[in-house]
């Protein structure tokens, strides 16, 4: 059954996901200075795996899932299939992430199995919901195609992750440990996060930058670059074949076309000034340049080893993905809170604007600390210097707390006491 078009999209559902994701981001950031010694070593370390998964699953994936429940109705112009299923999925997924991160942290491999099982169940719930939402979609736009590509990547990442967990207990995968690990990471990064961000950006950035939606050959380059490049990269990494380099070049072409679209949108925007959310998102896009260059250098064996790999992971997950997500959260969360708290009051009385709900000064502090911190962390882990990692980790932790503070300020508009006595500043008018 396809839901009726007029059904109200829930604001509470995506907000719950996004709030949980923000908590995971704060925990991950606080862990960076604490794990400085481990971060200066090899990436195959239980605590580094814990940090990686709280970032990729707790922060990035939960954010994408939550944002999907706000953005899918907007970009696909239809409500999600089942909010009840989305709530069940939330519980399963969060319990799974807590179990996974906890067991990675204490290096209890056997406990990873049930955690991975819960994550797979939560993932199946999300995929089912998404598949039934897009079922019968008549207009397969660029965004819709990339969302489906991303969901396919997500399904394969979760299955591969569960297989990796099982492989620790009983050897089931024919390929080597590091080959599996590299393939799993790239399936998540290039097969899940990248197409989702690229697809949604093509529809959402024009809304915020006030420009026409991008079109042209760049869309085909992105679609085919990812559609062919990601499987080639993952298979190439699994079997340690030159296919990984070929796939890497195709993905790099897709990323380049995506960057070109973003640059064009930013240059032709009608919006006169960029708010901090957009600055975060555009800075995140800028991180794609060093991340892609380094990824390509790794794929082509120009550079190698754990230090370069760690720097690459920080640039991709910390610089590009995290800064982009922070930026989008600064746009999405105020809208959802405003919608839930104030949309019924519009036309009946004064309601605050999104700008009045935000806290630009603290957002600016978060931007300065996180943008410089992520770049510096890539250098620090690349150099393997414990003191540098600890110092930069503190900068990132403070920046993350500043970001969380701005979100808390927005969320407080949902408090009943706040809604009971809305106070909106009158515009200052000089006679």
């Amino acid at each position, binding site marked *: 059954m396809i839901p009726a078009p007029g059904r109200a999209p829930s604001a509470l559902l995506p907000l719950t996901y996004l709030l949980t994701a923000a908590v995971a981001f704060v925990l991950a950031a606080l862990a960076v200075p604490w794990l400085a010694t481990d971060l200066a070593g090899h990436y195959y370390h239980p605590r580094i795996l814990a940090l990686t998964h709280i970032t990729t699953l707790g922060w990035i994936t939960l954010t994408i899932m939550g944002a999907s429940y706000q953005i899918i109705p907007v970009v696909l112009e239809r409500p999600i299939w089942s909010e009840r299923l989305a709530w069940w999925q939330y519980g399963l997924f969060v319990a799974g992430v807590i179990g996974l991160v906890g067991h990675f942290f204490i290096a209890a491999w056997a406990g990873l199995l049930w955690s991975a099982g819960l994550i797979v169940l939560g993932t199946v719930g999300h995929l089912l919901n998404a598949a039934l939402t897009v079922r019968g979609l008549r207009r397969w736009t660029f965004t819709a195609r990339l969302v489906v590509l991303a969901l396919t990547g997500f399904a394969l990442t979760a299955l591969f992750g569960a297989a990796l967990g099982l492989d620790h207990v009983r050897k089931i995968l024919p390929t080597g440990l590091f080959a599996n690990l590299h393939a799993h990471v790239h399936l998540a990064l290039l097969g899940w996060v990248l197409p989702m961000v690229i697809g949604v950006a093509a529809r959402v950035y024009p809304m915020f930058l006030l420009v026409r939606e991008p079109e042209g050959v760049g869309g085909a380059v992105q679609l085919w670059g990812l559609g062919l490049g990601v499987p080639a990269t993952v298979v190439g990494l699994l079997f340690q074949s030159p296919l990984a380099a070929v796939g890497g070049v195709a993905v790099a072409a897709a990323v380049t076309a995506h960057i070109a679209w973003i640059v064009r949108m930013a240059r032709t925007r009608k919006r006169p*000034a960029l708010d901090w959310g957009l600055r975060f998102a555009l800075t995140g896009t800028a991180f794609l340049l060093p991340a892609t260059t380094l990824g390509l250098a790794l794929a082509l064996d120009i550079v190698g080893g754990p230090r370069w790999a760690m720097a690459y992971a920080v640039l991709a997950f910390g610089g590009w993905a995290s800064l982009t997500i922070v930026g989008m959260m600064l746009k999405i969360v105020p809208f959802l809170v405003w919608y839930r708290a104030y*949309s*019924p009051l519009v*036309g009946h009385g004064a309601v605050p604007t*999104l*700008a009045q709900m935000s806290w630009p000064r603290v957002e600016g502090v978060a931007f300065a600390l996180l943008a410089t911190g992520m770049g510096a962390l890539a250098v620090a882990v690349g150099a393997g210097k414990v003191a540098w990692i600890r110092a930069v980790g503190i900068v990132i932790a403070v920046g993350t707390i500043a970001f969380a503070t701005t979100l808390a300020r927005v969320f407080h508009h949902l408090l009943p006491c706040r809604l009971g006595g809305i106070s909106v500043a009158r515009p200052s008018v000089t*006679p």
Partner: protein
Amino acid sequence: MADRCECGHHAVGIAPAALAAIPDTRRLHLDVREDLRRGDAPFAKIMATVNMLGVDQALEVRAPFEPVPLYTVLAKLSLSHWTEAREADDWSVWFYRDPAAPAEAPGGVASAARAPERTVTLDVRGLEPPQPMVLVLQRLETLGQNEKLEIIHSRRPVFLYPQLEGRGFVYETDEPEPGVVRIVIRRGTV
């Protein structure tokens, strides 16, 4: 410096008589240049000020660009405008009531004299969320029984539909051309 008027009713360079007749003490000034430079959307602030505007008052809006979308919106509230470009990034637009101005069909859409239903058109393309929703819901509050509101949008406003239903409005949506969504809203029958 150049003066111009989008509506074409007034001579270039000279303030229209109805505006010139309004004394300084009855003129309000709202400068939104800093808001826009910060990236804040000043629409709600402008509308709040317009709602306070007396029939014998004029409002000057200072903006870093010509705020063309405002003309249509405020024309529906029977406000004429007169625009002065002080600098390339400093525009001054006066909104005032002109008794001599021809009655404009709401929304700038000509409606037939004998038409039983008047169409009010709002073009909300190019506005950042949630401004389209705010604009539409505010306009609906003054929608007459014989009026329908036609929204020109760049996408289906899925967050607006439940608000319309909750307020007793009925609506139809179509796409007259690619990338353009039209929503026609009427008061629901009791």
